[in-house]
């Protein structure tokens, strides 16, 4: 069975890849906070923000097309909510647009809000994608744990990441088998067959979890996973963080 590999570019080498994971998470979070909470109807501010995001992508040597593909695939969801914005904002400074028999009031503020929300979402998606593809998932989780995310949650998520591919494999096999055997049939039949598939998957997953737990117990598991975290924050990392923070503040003040 084939799976999409999310951290496909996580083992290449660049300035962004070499950043300490904790610093990298903080730096990207800072960027996202600045962009996602940019206020008002001032659209010019998105030009320097976009330049910052694009330069981060170029620095990381991850193909720009790869990141843009992610953005495009998420765009329908973003547009679904925002597409009405130009038409429902306050009437001041508005015009009427006719489209065949349909006449809609369009406001400039509404259009500005629409562009701003779409820009914010797209830039944030680009940043999250870049964070994900330039860090492998295991070190991302370890860094999050070091940043005081509850270790219980981190352990559960690492288990989940371990078994998600196993379970998806099982599900894909079951679906393939079902499709081989059932041609035609009513929609209700297919719905029922797929629901039973999920039922079977649940039972298998539950039994697997019990077996995993027994195996862990017999190896002396006492509720804690111990691992070595040996990456240290260097001056270079701190310089990057400070530099980024200064740039973002300057953009916010003068943008």
């Amino acid at each position, binding site marked *: 069975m084939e799976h999409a590999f999310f951290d496909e570019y996580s083992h290449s080498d660049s300035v962004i890849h070499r950043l300490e994971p904790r610093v990298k998470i903080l730096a990207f979070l800072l960027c996202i906070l600045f962009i*996602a909470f940019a206020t008002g109807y001032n659209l010019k501010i998105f030009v320097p923000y976009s330049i910052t995001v694009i330069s981060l992508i170029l620095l990381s040597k991850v193909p720009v097309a790869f990141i843009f593909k*992610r953005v495009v695939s998420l765009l329908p969801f973003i547009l679904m909510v925002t597409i009405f914005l130009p038409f429902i904002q306050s009437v001041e400074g508005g015009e009427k647009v006719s489209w065949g028999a349909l006449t809609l009031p369009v406001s400039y503020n509404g259009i500005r809000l629409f562009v701003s929300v779409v820009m914010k979402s797209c830039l944030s998606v680009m940043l999250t994608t870049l964070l994900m593809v330039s860090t492998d998932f295991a070190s991302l989780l370890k860094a999050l744990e070091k940043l005081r995310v509850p270790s219980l949650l981190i352990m559960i*998520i690492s288990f989940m990441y371990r078994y998600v591919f196993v*379970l998806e494999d099982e599900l894909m096999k079951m679906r393939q088998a079902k499709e081989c055997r059932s041609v035609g049939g009513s929609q209700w039949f297919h719905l029922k067959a797929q629901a039973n598939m999920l039922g079977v*998957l649940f039972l298998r997953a539950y039994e697997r979890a019990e077996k995993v737990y027994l195996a862990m117990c017999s190896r002396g598991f006492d509720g804690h996973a111990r691992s070595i975290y040996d990456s240290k924050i260097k001056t270079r990392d701190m310089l990057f963080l400070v530099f980024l923070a200064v740039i973002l503040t300057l953009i916010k003040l003068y943008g």
Partner: protein
Amino acid sequence: MHIPDGFLSVKVSAATWVISLCGIALCLKKVTARLKDKMIPLMGVMSAFVFAAQMLNFPIFAGTSGHLLASALASILLGPYAAAIVMTCVLVVQCFLFQDGGITALGANILNMALVAAIGGYGVYSIAKKMTGIIVATAMAAWLSVVLASSVCALELAASGTVALTIVLPAMALAHALTGGIEAAVTCLIINFILKVRKDLLYKP
């Protein structure tokens, strides 16, 4: 229903993060008290199950398809608190791996789909179970969990000033009242299957 970054205002984002963090802390405490060490592998594998279940597309009508939210399913099988943790893990992974839902909006997404949908859904289930059968209670819980989660999502968007409440609430509630029907049907079929095969696995409070 996953809210991306940039849709929520600072206030709504901060408030939902605080509520979600408190909610998760409470759930972690409750589940650890019940399951002890076993919770780590069990919750991990169950999160993987919910994640895989959400990937499976169901035919709706005429070529369109949708997938489960599975909050109600998880809460009927594992109990409300465990379900909230499972959904939280699924949302965190979706946020980082697929950029489904933004980091600043993660608090809101956890509130909608993990806390409101799972715990609210279980509340409905446990009340309705006493009055009717398990299957009817399951249907009500599944349908309501989807509608509740989408309504809270609409409220958050409106409170942020992104969209007007009078438009977004009816639109979200209506769209999800329809998809909630599929959610209810599929959840009932799954619970019916498990009742036949391994009745002992359903959550007993």
